């Protein structure tokens, strides 16, 4: 195969990746999009394999490696639970990062095999460095993120979901960043080691609440790492695919930051998300609490009900019960809709997947901006395991969460809130929604309460 043919096939693959992402613009086209992605990958792998075969005939180790990895990957993909998606994605990012480092080391060891000149030119060296650097940060950062998400903090303090910060850490980070930039020799090893360390230190101080941003950011890094390797190997397809992934992750980080009303810098500097409710006002306010039967009565007599699910719902594994409740209500002629806040889950779009898994039709599920205008006409807003994202304090100047976009559940005629206790959410502040006259609290485990609601609605 000529170099031109190879490049053209790579172009086809790159275009397939663009079409794959384009497919995700709506659920009906999404599966076709995924097929485009598979096709692009298959083409890229096939022509590369053909190229290697024509050079060295040594394809068996490659195929062997692919089979081993493929079997593991397929197994994991089948077995993983949807609540574990954030961990899975973090783990996979770390693999891309690590592989980028390995490739770069292999390229330094034997440049000719990768189609590079020996000795490697200064420019290629710099490109390899960048690729490795980002790859190493992606790896170690993702490992920490994975540990935090998987709740390994009980066993290793390093993985504690609370921010781990030590004195002067940010200065150390800065110094490491500088050293990594400056060092000339022995460049490769030192730089890679520093980048690994930097990745650890970068993610360790970030708390559990900021994980959606962290995952998106590492998603972006893994893309830039691929693009960096693409530059060093003179491979435009890698550059295109890497940039697509890189910009995707960057946009998702931006969306998540905006939804949490946090600046990207403050997330990276860390230290948030672990503070416990230190300044809970002790002023006695009365809440109206009711039984599931009272709540069921309100629900069955409503015309429109908007369900606001939070991560607490997923933790209690109550999605299926909620779906059952919605079906019952629909049969009684009640219009049921779901309102999803961008940070309702542990990663972007997580709640949508969790609801989809419970067979909630996606045309009943609405994004925050699309449904907020409907709350004033809604009879009941049913809030399940959500807190900060429905806190009307966000509209009040001077409150710690002022400016954060919220689901305007407080505008509904009646508000039903299910919570386990009156404990405050991640932001550690009280929620006036719970004390409003039109609010009724139903305390208890989300799954138990929703199941009781289902029975009571009969």
């Amino acid at each position, binding site marked *: 195969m000529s170099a031109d043919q190879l490049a053209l096939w790579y172009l086809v*693959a790159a275009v397939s990746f663009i079409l794959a992402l384009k497919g995700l613009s709506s*659920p009906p086209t999404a599966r076709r999009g*995924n097929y485009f*992605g598979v096709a*692009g990958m298959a083409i890229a*792998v096939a022509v*590369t*394999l053909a190229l290697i075969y024509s*050079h*060295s005939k*040594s394809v068996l*180790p490659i195929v062997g*490696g692919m089979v081993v*990895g*493929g079997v*593991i*990957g*397929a197994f994991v*993909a089948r077995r993983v639970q949807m609540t574990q*998606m954030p961990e899975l*994605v973090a783990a*996979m*990012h770390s*693999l*891309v990062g690590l*592989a980028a480092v390995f*490739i770069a*080391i*292999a*390229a330094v*060891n*034997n440049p*000719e095999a*990768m189609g590079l000149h020996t000795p490697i030119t200064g420019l290629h060296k710099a490109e390899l460095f960048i690729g490795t650097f980002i790859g190493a940060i992606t790896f170690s950062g993702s490992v920490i993120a994975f540990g935090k998400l998987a709740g390994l903090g009980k066993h290793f303090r390093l993985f504690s979901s609370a921010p781990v910060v030590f004195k002067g850490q940010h200065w150390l980070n800065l110094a490491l960043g500088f050293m990594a930039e400056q060092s000339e020799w022995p460049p490769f090893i030192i730089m890679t080691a520093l980048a690994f360390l930097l990745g650890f230190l970068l993610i360790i101080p970030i708390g559990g609440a900021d994980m959606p941003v962290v995952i998106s950011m590492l*998603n972006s890094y*893994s893309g830039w*790492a*691929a693009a960096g390797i*693409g*530059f060093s190997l003179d491979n*435009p397809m*890698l*550059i295109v*695919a*890497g*940039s*697509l992934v*890189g*910009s*995707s992750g960057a946009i*998702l980080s931006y969306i998540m930051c905006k939804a949490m009303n946090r600046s990207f810098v403050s997330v990276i500097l860390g230290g948030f998300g672990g503070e416990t409710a230190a300044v809970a006002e002790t002023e006695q306010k009365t809440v109206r609490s009711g039984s599931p039967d009272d709540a069921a009565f309100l629900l069955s007599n409503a015309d429109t009900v908007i369900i606001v699910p939070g991560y607490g719902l997923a933790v209690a594994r109550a999605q299926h019960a909620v779906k059952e409740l919605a079906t019952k209500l629909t049969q009684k002629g009640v219009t049921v809709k779901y309102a999803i806040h961008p940070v309702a889950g542990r990663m*972007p*779009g997580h709640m*949508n*997947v969790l609801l*989809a*898994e419970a*067979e909630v*039709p996606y045309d009943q599920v609405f*994004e925050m901006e699309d449904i907020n205008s409907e709350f004033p006409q809604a009879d009941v807003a049913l809030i399940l395991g959500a807190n900060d994202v429905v806190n009307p304090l966000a509209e009040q100047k001077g409150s710690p969460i002022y400016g954060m976009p919220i689901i305007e559940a407080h505008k509904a005629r009646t508000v039903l809130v299910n919570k386990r206790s009156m404990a405050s959410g991640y932001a550690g502040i009280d929620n006036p929604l719970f004390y409003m006259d039109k609010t009724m609290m139903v305390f208890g485990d989300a799954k138990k309460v929703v199941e009781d609601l289902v029975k009571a609605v009969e």
Partner: protein
Amino acid sequence: MTAGVDPIVFYLTIFVLAIFVGYHVIWNVTPALHTPLMSLTNAISSIILVGAMLAAGSETLDWGGWLGVLAVALVSINTFGGFLVTQRMLGMFKKKEPKPGDKE
């Protein structure tokens, strides 16, 4: 006109244009599919499999080559796992209530 231009300039051109394409395509992705988007982009970033294959495909398989093989195995987890889990998730997004008689 392009004679004498360093290839890096072309790559830079491709890089910048690809970022623009990415920017516009990604903003069009519906927020409901952001999790599948992440797993799909994750699968796509395993395109560095190509680099790993080149490293693993050298004629004499020295330690660097074996490192490449290891990289191939690691990234293949992503390639296969990423696309399969995306497929699995997308399969869950259904529009209508499934009819009682329907079987998956």
